[in-house]
C-alpha cells in the first residue's frame, strides 16, 4: 500500500459508507473497476465500519479499574450485571452455570485481595439464615462468590424514614442473632452499619464481614483502625481492639437509626411513641460509652429484642415462638445485668418443645449469676456465649458423581430431609417389578428393600420427619401407600385411578405430615392434583385441569405453597405453577412460574422455599435438563449445566447441600454435592 493508494481507499470508503446498502455494491464495482486491491481493502474496512469494539474506549480506560463486562466468564461464573461498588471492590450479579444459580460476585480491588482469605474464612465459619452465605473463593483472580440477596439495603430503606417499631424489633433480633452466631465463633464484625444490612422478604441479612476478623487474632499490621467511623464505639475510635461489645455498640446505633430515621449523636434522646418502654432501656444498654456497662453478649441483646418484639406485637407472636424459645435459653447464658433486665419483660408464654435440640448443642449451662462485668478489653467474647456450634461451610465446588448404577433401572430418587438417606425405585433384574429401596447416602451399606418388588412402586417421597416413605403403586391395587423407613408392611392411604403412562408418579408430603399430594384422574377426564389425608383418607381436589394433566406436585418446605406442572394435551407443553395454600390447605391463589410450554419430568423445592429445581425438555422425546427458577422473587429459569442433558426426577435435601436425579443413560442415580 502506498500513501496515494491509501488516500483513494479512504475516499472510496467514505463514499461507500454514505451509500445506501443496496447501491453500495454497484458503487464499489464502478469506482474500483481498475484496481481490485483497493476494492478488497475497502470491503475489508466496510466489514468493520459498524458496531462497537476495539478502539471505542480510550487506551486508558479500564487500566486502573477492574471492571467486568456482562457475559464475562470467571471460571464457572458468568457475569450478568454490576450491582454496585464499594470501598474494597465491585459487586456483580452472576450465574453459576453449573447450578443455574444466581450468585453475587465481589471483585476485590488489588490492594484488598489479601483480605480475601480473611473475609472468606470469617464468613465460611458462619452458616446462618441472617448472614449472607459464601459459596466460593476465586483465589487467584481475587473474588468472593456469595449468596445473591434480593432486597434493599437498610441504608437505602432509611432514606424513606424510620421503620415501624415491629420491624425494628424483628430485624434487630435477626441481626443480633446473626452477630451472636458470629461471636460464638470468635468473629467480630467490626463494621456493622445500615449499608451492610439487607432487608429481604426473608428478613435481615448481614453482609460484608470484610473487616471482620477472628477476634483472637492479631490486629492488622500498623495498628490501623478498620471500620466506618460513624458506627465505631468510643473505645474502637481510640484504637483499642474491637471486641464483641463494639458490635453491640454498633447495633445500638443501627437500632436507633432504624427507629428514628436519624443518626445517633451523643446529644440524642430517644423517644418514640409506640415503642415499648423497654426499647429505650435496651438502646441505652447498647450505647454506654464504657464497654463494661453495656450488654456483655450479643445473645443478651437478641434475647431482649425478641422479648420486646413478642411483647409488642401479639399478632406476629406465633411466628416468633420458636425464636423466643431460643432466646429464653440464652437468658441463662447472658450476663447477670441482662438477666435482671430480662426478668421484667420475658413473656410468660412458654415456647414450644423445639428447645430440646438447642439444649443439646449448648454446653453445660453456666451459672445464672455470673459477675456482671467482663474485663474491659477481653480479646474474646464472653466464654459463656461460645458454645461449640461449628459447622464450617465447605468451599468445595459443586461436584456430580454416579451414586447408584446397579443393574436394572433406578428412578425417582428422594433425599431424606436431612440428606442422610436416599429412597428410590429399582427394578432389580431378579424381581420383575419395581420396589422401593432406602440406602444411606454416604455409607457403603447395601440398599434395603422396603416393598415386595412385584408391583410397580414409583415416586418415593420422604415424610418431613424422615420416618416414612410414601409412593405410588401403579399396578394391582393402584394407590398411594406409605411404608416405615425402618421396614414393615406398606399402608394404603387411598386408592387412585391407574395413572397414564406419562403421568409422573411424584407424590409429596405436607410439612405437618398430614397430607400427601399426588395426581389422580378427575371425573371430567383430565388429571389433577389431589390431597389425601394420611390418617383420614380424605380426598381433596386442589387443581382444576379438565383436559390436560396436572402432575409432579411438590409442597414447599413450610407447606404454604404447592408447585406442580400444568400441561395441555396430555403431558406435553407444561409450565410450572405455584398455588398458595391457606393454613387448612385450601387453595388461595395460583401463579404461573414459567412460560415455556415444555415437557416436565419432576419438580423439587430448594431448601429456602424460594425457588424450584425442575427437569424439562423442549418436547417429549427430546433431552431433558435440570433447571432452576426463582419463585420469590420471580426469575428466569437457568439451566443447571452440571447435570447434563439427560436428567430427570430431581430431589434436593433440606440440609446438607445435596441434589440427586435420575440420569437416563442406564437410568442411574446421580448425586451433586455442595449444591446450594
Amino acid at each position: 500500500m502506498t500513501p496515494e493508494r491509501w488516500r483513494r481507499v479512504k475516499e472510496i470508503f467514505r463514499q461507500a459508507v454514505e451509500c445506501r446498502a443496496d447501491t453500495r455494491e454497484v458503487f464499489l464495482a464502478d469506482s474500483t473497476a481498475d484496481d481490485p486491491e483497493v476494492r478488497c481493502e475497502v470491503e475489508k474496512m466496510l466489514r468493520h465500519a459498524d458496531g462497537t469494539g476495539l478502539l471505542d474506549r480510550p487506551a486508558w480506560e479500564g487500566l486502573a479499574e477492574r471492571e467486568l463486562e456482562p457475559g464475562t466468564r470467571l471460571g464457572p461464573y458468568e457475569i450478568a450485571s454490576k450491582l454496585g461498588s464499594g470501598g474494597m471492590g465491585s459487586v456483580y450479579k452472576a450465574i453459576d452455570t453449573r447450578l443455574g444459580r444466581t450468585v453475587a460476585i465481589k471483585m476485590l480491588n488489588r490492594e484488598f485481595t489479601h483480605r480475601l482469605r480473611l473475609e472468606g474464612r470469617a464468613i465460611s465459619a458462619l452458616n446462618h439464615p441472617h448472614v449472607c452465605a459464601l459459596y466460593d473463593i476465586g483465589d487467584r483472580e481475587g473474588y468472593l462468590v456469595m449468596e445473591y440477596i434480593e432486597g434493599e439495603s437498610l441504608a437505602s430503606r432509611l432514606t424513606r424514614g424510620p421503620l415501624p417499631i415491629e420491624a425494628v424489633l424483628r430485624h434487630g433480633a435477626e441481626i443480633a442473632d446473626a452477630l451472636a452466631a458470629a461471636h460464638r465463633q470468635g468473629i467480630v464484625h467490626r463494621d456493622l452499619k445500615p449499608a451492610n444490612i439487607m432487608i429481604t422478604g426473608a428478613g435481615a441479612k448481614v453482609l460484608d464481614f470484610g473487616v471482620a476478623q477472628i477476634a483472637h487474632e492479631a490486629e492488622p499490621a500498623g495498628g490501623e483502625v478498620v471500620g466506618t467511623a460513624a458506627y465505631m464505639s468510643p473505645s474502637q475510635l481510640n484504637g483499642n481492639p474491637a471486641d464483641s461489645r463494639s458490635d453491640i455498640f454498633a447495633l445500638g446505633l443501627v437500632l436507633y437509626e432504624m427507629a428514628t430515621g436519624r443518626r445517633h449523636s451523643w446529644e440524642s434522646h430517644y423517644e418514640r411513641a409506640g415503642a415499648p418502654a423497654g426499647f429505650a432501656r435496651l438502646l441505652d444498654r447498647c450505647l454506654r460509652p464504657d464497654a463494661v456497662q453495656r450488654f456483655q453478649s450479643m445473645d443478651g441483646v437478641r434475647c431482649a429484642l425478641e422479648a420486646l418484639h413478642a411483647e409488642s406485637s401479639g399478632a406476629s407472636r406465633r411466628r416468633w415462638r420458636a425464636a423466643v424459645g431460643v432466646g429464653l435459653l440464652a437468658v441463662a447464658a447472658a450476663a447477670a445485668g441482662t438477666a435482671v433486665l430480662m426478668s421484667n419483660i420475658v413473656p410468660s408464654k412458654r415456647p414450644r418443645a423445639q428447645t430440646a435440640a438447642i439444649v443439646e448443642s449448648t454446653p453445660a449451662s453456666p451459672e445464672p449469676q455470673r459477675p456482671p462485668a467482663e474485663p474491659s478489653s477481653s480479646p474474646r467474647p464472653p466464654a459463656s456465649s461460645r458454645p461449640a456450634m461449628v459447622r464450617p461451610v465447605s468451599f468445595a465446588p459443586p461436584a456430580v458423581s454416579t451414586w447408584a448404577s446397579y443393574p436394572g433401572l433406578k428412578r425417582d430418587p428422594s433425599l431424606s430431609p436431612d440428606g442422610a438417606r436416599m429412597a428410590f425405585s429399582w427394578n432389580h433384574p431378579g424381581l420383575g417389578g419395581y420396589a422401593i429401596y432406602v440406602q444411606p447416602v454416604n455409607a457403603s451399606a447395601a440398599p434395603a428393600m422396603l416393598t415386595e418388588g412385584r408391583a410397580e412402586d414409583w415416586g418415593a417421597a420422604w415424610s418431613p420427619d424422615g420416618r416414612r416413605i410414601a409412593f405410588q403403586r401403579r399396578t394391582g391395587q393402584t394407590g398411594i401407600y406409605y411404608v416405615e423407613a425402618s421396614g414393615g408392611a406398606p399402608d394404603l392411604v387411598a386408592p387412585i385411578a391407574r395413572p397414564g403412562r406419562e403421568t409422573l408418579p411424584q407424590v409429596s408430603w405436607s410439612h405437618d405430615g398430614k397430607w400427601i399430594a399426588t395426581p389422580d384422574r378427575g371425573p371430567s377426564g383430565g388429571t389433577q392434583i389431589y390431597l389425601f389425608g394420611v390418617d383420614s383418607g380424605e380426598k381433596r381436589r386442589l387443581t382444576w385441569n379438565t383436559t390436560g394433566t396436572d402432575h409432579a406436585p411438590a409442597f414447599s418446605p413450610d407447606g404454604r405453597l404447592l408447585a406442580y406442572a400444568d400441561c395441555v394435551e396430555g403431558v406435553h407443553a407444561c409450565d410450572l405453577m405455584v398455588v398458595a395454600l391457606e393454613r387448612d390447605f385450601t387453595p388461595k391463589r395460583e401463579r404461573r412460574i414459567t412460560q415455556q410450554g415444555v415437557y416436565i419430568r419432576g419438580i423439587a423445592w430448594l431448601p429456602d422455599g424460594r425457588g424450584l429445581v425442575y427437569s424439562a425438555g423442549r418436547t417429549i422425546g427430546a433431552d431433558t435438563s435440570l433447571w432452576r427458577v426463582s419463585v420469590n422473587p420471580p426469575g428466569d429459569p437457568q439451566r443447571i449445566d452440571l447435570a447434563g442433558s439427560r436428567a430427570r426426577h430431581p430431589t434436593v435435601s433440606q440440609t446438607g447441600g445435596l441434589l440427586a436425579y435420575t440420569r437416563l443413560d442406564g437410568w442411574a442415580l446421580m448425586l451433586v454435592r455442595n449444591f446450594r
Partner: protein
Amino acid sequence: MAESSGDVTKLLAQMQAGRKDALAQLLPLVYNELRRLAARYMQQERGGHTLQPTALVHEAYLKLTHQDRANWHNRAQFMGVAGQLMRRILVDHARKRCAAKRSGELVTLCESAARQLADVSRPEEILAVHLTLERLERLDPQQGKLVELRYFAGLSAEETAEAMGLPLRTVEREWAAAKAWLRAQLAEGES
C-alpha cells in the same frame, strides 16, 4: 534543562513559532510529569473514582504551566505533545504487563478464564494497536496523530479537532476510516 513552568510556556510559544528544538526540550519535561501522574493513576484502583485520561493531561498541563486559565492555543499544542507521550507511557506499561505475563506471574490472569478482566486484556490490545498504528502512520502521518490523540490521550473528537486545527467533520471522517482500517487489520491481518 528547562525545569520551571515559565520554561514550559516559553517552549510552547517557541514551538508554535516553528522552532524544532523547542519540542525536544519540552518532551522530557512533560513526559516526567505525565509518568508521575500516570503512576498515581494506576495505583488508584478504586471503582467509580477513576481519573479520566484527559483530566490527566489537563492536570499535567496546568501543573507544568501554572496557568489557572488555560491558554487555549498553547493548550492545544500541549495536547499534541502529550498524546505522543501518553502513547509511550501506555505502551511501556503494556510491555511490562505482558512481560510479567510471559515470565509466569500473570499467566492465569492473562490466559485463563479471567482473560476478559479489563485491566489484563487491555495491555495486549494497546500493544497491538500501537504496532498497527505505526503502519498507518507511514501511509498517513496526520491520521496517525489523530488516532494517537483519540485513542492514547483519550481526547474527544472536539478536543482533537482543536488540538490539530482541523474541522470537526474531518476529524470524524478520518477517525471512522482509521478505526475501520485498524480493526480490519487487527481482526483479519494484513491483506
